[in-house]
């Protein structure tokens, strides 16, 4: 039942930008992207929507190889980005000196749960192994396609992010032994924009 609730929540969040902008073209994704690492898989790919000038909502499906575990896994990520300002540069470049946001990652695997199964006494494990809450800061460079090219792809961006998650931060706050380098993670990706 709780899993169902999460799916409804994800659906509502996905449709939120569309509700804010009822024009039909706003329903179409504004960009697609591919990201390496960042706690959402070895590589993740997805689409996203842009609205209210500074905001973006992305969804990703990620692939996580098995490494030392018994099977490879898929992941799903819902990501909210805030880009406070962008700066036009020479040529067709623009940069976002700061991007920030948070994302919720879910492992698509039965060994992971949102809340502890009924077999356990009440409040036995009070956290979720399935849902991880990540936060990040990063930067982005965008190349705007010259209008005369008439390409469907209007822009190409490369970005990097430094991220951490709820459980790492909790562990680091409580222990001097752990420092920022233990809990910060580097990731990067490419984004193709479909709108000007």
């Amino acid at each position: 039942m709780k899993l169902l609730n999460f799916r409804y929540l994800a659906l509502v969040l996905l449709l939120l930008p569309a509700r804010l902008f009822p024009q039909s073209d706003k329903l179409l994704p504004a960009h697609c992207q591919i990201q390496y690492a960042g706690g959402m898989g070895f590589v993740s790919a997805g689409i996203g929507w842009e609205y209210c000038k500074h905001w973006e909502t992305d969804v990703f499906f990620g692939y996580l190889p098995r490494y030392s575990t018994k099977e490879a896994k898929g992941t799903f990520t819902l990501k909210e980005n805030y880009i406070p300002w962008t700066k036009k540069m020479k040529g067709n470049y623009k940069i976002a000196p700061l991007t920030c946001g948070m994302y919720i990652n879910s492992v698509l695997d039965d060994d992971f749960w949102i809340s502890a199964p009924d077999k356990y006494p009440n409040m036995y494990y009070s956290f979720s192994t399935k849902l991880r809450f990540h936060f990040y800061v990063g930067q982005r460079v965008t190349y705007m396609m010259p209008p005369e090219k008439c390409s469907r792809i209007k822009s190409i961006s490369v970005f990097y992010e430094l991220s951490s998650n709820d459980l790492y931060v909790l562990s680091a706050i409580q222990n001097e032994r752990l420092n920022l380098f233990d809990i910060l993670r580097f990731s990067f990706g490419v984004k193709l924009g479909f709108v000007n």
Partner: protein
Amino acid sequence: MKTIRGKLLITLCIAFQSCEMLDFVEYHPYDGHISGATGVNAANIARIEKSCRGKTVVRFAFMGDTQRHYDETEDFVNAVNARNDIDFVIHGGDIADFGLTREFEWMRDIMNELTVPYVVIIGNHDCLANGSEVFCKIFGDENFTFTAGATKFVCLNTNAIEYNYSHPVPDFSFIENQIDTNSSEYSKTVVAMHAPPFCEQFNNNIAKEFQNLIRNFPSLQFCLNAHEHNLTTKDHFDDGIIYYGTPSIDKRQYILFTLTPNGYDYEITEF
């Protein structure tokens, strides 16, 4: 142009590799992508068996439930390193708190600073999500034994509720096999586990059968458990076999056992 592209590609590859080597990228908190030492228990057991061979008095520290207490575990390691009368350390399990891959590595790296060898028993928190798979890779089998001097240590996975009957916990076949294995090489036995009988983790339907089985080991001295986070000494089955429960590491205590030809002593040690 082509050479520039080639150089760029090589630079990118090197950047990729160095990021990964520096642990600065992570695919997932539960990715099981392990860096650093694996098979820790087996390597340390070889050291224990070598250093304790022929010894009539063996002294070891029993601690556990280090979950998310990195600072206290580091203090424990320093306290043990400051002494020179301990042969080895047994970690009673719950080395991780959430079962995250990184937690096992962080704790392993702290425990690896011990100058004496140590072994880790699997705890229920170590089984969370894919934790048991990571535990087995970094530390070793969920059931294992080793011999220190004249005493055989039988270390067992007893976290039955975590496994949904997918395989036997505790594993009676393993225990039966061990009763007959190398029986000429030891004269006394200690059985160690994370969750003791009659706690919510244990398969209590077979608690008495478990006790009857382990009593077949030559001269069973006592049992060790963690999980309960406080010092406990319980004669669960009224048969004189005491289960010693270690305080969790945040209590800044461990139990120091001394096995002698005539029996054993123990003391609660603070650090």
